[in-house]
């Protein structure tokens, strides 16, 4: 029992609710949002410490032993994701201070933002299938609110698609839970794992696994990503950044959890399917990224590519692949938030998102330009920035498991990603300067801090990969060895 486990959910939730009560106090909102992110970050850091020294931390809510109550479980993977989430969200919210606008602030931007984080954190922590669904819904409902916040016509138009797709996904999630319950009679993931292991992952169980894969793929944008580009280009930048950084990751996390903890018995079927889906995702995403001359579109398709690449590591189902994926997952969260923020700033300055209409910004905004350059390199895994280790090990993982095609696609698409982001760099920052400072529609004032901080983070994650190694290793060990998780959750009461 460890009540700290619940803090990443409770802190943003309570503080957000307090903000709802004191609606007009914007300064209070800002202070509380920072407080909440640092709070969850602190809790996550402490959890990492505990997980490292004491093993997987669990909390049986209400004191009901698993599998009857709901278990909250923090293993190293969750803890790492939690801390990354906190950091990324912190900078996104700081960016929002200057960019989101008074009206949105008064219409519950910060509370909704925190609620989103609540849902995300909840999904990372929970050890119960149905509770995962509920956490998903918390996240999704907040995201519906955030994506429509402001009610501009493009937001409304795209959010309808987003909402509908997610509603259907939720239904499918529920029917998957229903089937699962019929077959196994339990909802606790550890218990599920045990029961599945007991009878072996037969045909029907594999089919259930596929429904779950389908549902989570929808959330993660793995293969079923068609809803993603539109919806991520609609909301205000701060929101888009946090979406790009976090929302797909929840789906990815869920895929990881399920296909390492529960449905890991038939990797030649399930993981191969994941691999094929990842490959198609990468290819289509990369094609989308190079196809357009619109910053928002390029960036959103890059989100898609990232998803495919991370899951390629899972598909390999090897230590190396997993290690790479976890590194890449953390990298991707940071970098997607960063590139969306910078992209937003560029669009704000130029007043357009069309690359043909902008040029030579580096003359007036050199720092922004170089930040973007570093980000662009990092996003395509150029060493020694943060994507590098992930890229190397995911590739190694796919090679080791014999999926050479998957690794090759990963590398080729990373080149296409580089091409697409460099296209932004070369078109918007290089070339003749056509926009004098007076003509600019936006400013970089006040938003450079989060950008610089995140750039430092991506450099730091790359150069300091060693610092993370121990933790990632523990996380991989946990993933490859489900009995640790089961032991931690069920303890001696395993049936």
């Amino acid at each position, binding site marked *: 029992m460890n009540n700290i486990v619940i803090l990443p959910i409770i802190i943003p939730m309570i503080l957000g609710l307090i903000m709802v009560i004191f609606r007009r106090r914007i300064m209070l909102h800002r202070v509380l949002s920072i407080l909440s992110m640092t709070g969850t970050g602190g809790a996550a850091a402490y959890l990492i410490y505990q997980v490292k020294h004491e093993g997987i931390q669990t909390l049986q809510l209400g004191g009901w032993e698993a599998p009857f109550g709901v278990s909250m479980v923090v293993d190293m993977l969750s803890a790492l994701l939690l801390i990354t989430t906190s950091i990324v969200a912190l900078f996104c919210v700081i960016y929002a201070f200057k960019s989101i606008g008074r009206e949105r602030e008064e219409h519950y931007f910060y509370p909704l933002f925190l609620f989103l984080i609540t849902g995300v954190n909840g999904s990372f922590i929970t050890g119960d299938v*149905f509770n995962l*669904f*509920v956490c998903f*819904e918390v996240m*999704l*409902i907040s995201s*519906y*609110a955030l994506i*429509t916040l402001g*009610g501009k*016509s*493009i937001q*409304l*138009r*795209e*959010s*309808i*698609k987003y*909402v*509908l797709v997610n*509603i*259907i996904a*939720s*239904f499918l999630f*529920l*029917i998957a*839970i*229903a*089937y699962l*319950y*019929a077959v196994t009679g339990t*909802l606790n993931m550890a218990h599920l794992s045990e029961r599945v292991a007991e009878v072996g992952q037969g045909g029907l169980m594999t089919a259930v696994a596929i429904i779950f894969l389908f549902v989570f793929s929808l959330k993660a944008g793995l293969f079923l990503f068609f809803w993603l580009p*539109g919806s991520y280009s609609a909301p205000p930048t701060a929101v888009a950044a946090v979406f790009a950084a976090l929302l797909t990751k929840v789906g990815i996390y869920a895929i990881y959890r399920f296909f390492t903890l529960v449905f890991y018995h038939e990797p030649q079927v399930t993981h191969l399917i994941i691999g094929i889906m990842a490959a198609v995702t990468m290819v289509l995403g990369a094609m989308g990224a190079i196809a357009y001359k*619109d910053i928002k579109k390029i960036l959103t398709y890059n989100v898609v590519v990232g998803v495919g690449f991370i899951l390629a590591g899972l598909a390999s189902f090897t230590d190396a692949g997993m290690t790479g994926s976890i590194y890449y997952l953390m990298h991707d969260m940071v970098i997607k938030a960063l590139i969306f923020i910078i992209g937003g700033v560029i669009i704000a300055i130029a007043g357009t998102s069309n690359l043909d209409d902008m040029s030579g910004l580096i003359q007036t905004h050199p720092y922004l330009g170089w930040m973007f350059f570093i980000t662009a390199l990092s996003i395509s895994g150029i060493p020694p920035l943060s994507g590098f280790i992930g890229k190397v090990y995911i590739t190694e993982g796919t090679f080791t498991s014999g999926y050479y095609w998957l690794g090759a696609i990963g590398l080729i698409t990373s080149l296409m990603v580089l091409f697409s982001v460099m296209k932004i760099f070369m078109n918007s920052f290089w070339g003749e300067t056509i926009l004098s400072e007076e003509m600019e529609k936006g400013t970089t004032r006040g938003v450079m801090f989060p950008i610089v901080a995140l750039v430092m983070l991506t450099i730091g994650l790359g150069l300091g990969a060693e610092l993370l190694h121990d933790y990632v290793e523990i996380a991989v060990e946990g993933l490859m060895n489900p009995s640790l998780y089961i032991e931690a959750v069920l303890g001696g009461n395993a049936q």
Partner: protein
Amino acid sequence: MESLMSILIGVFFAIGTYLILTKSLLRIILGTSIISHGVHLLIITMGGVKAGGPPLLGLGSTSFTDALPQALILTAIVINFATTAIFLVLSYRSYKVLGTDDTAQMRGNEDE
């Protein structure tokens, strides 16, 4: 019973899907509602039906139907309600702002 329910649920899903695939926003919402009924019935069916009395102690029954799916459905119904509310409001706002409830006209390639 369970088999018949499965077929009923299948019919719900089919009808709901067909509605969702139409153009009008309202029909789409109706479709999601029908599917949601299907989903809820599916959960309770998958929990096994009519295996005992209502899950209330002290009313004389000795065996009870599985209460867990009921609790799950309850939660699901509420969440579905919240989602439907948002979706409804969203669609009428879109109708007001975009001037149409025809999703075919909401492609959104024209103004970019």
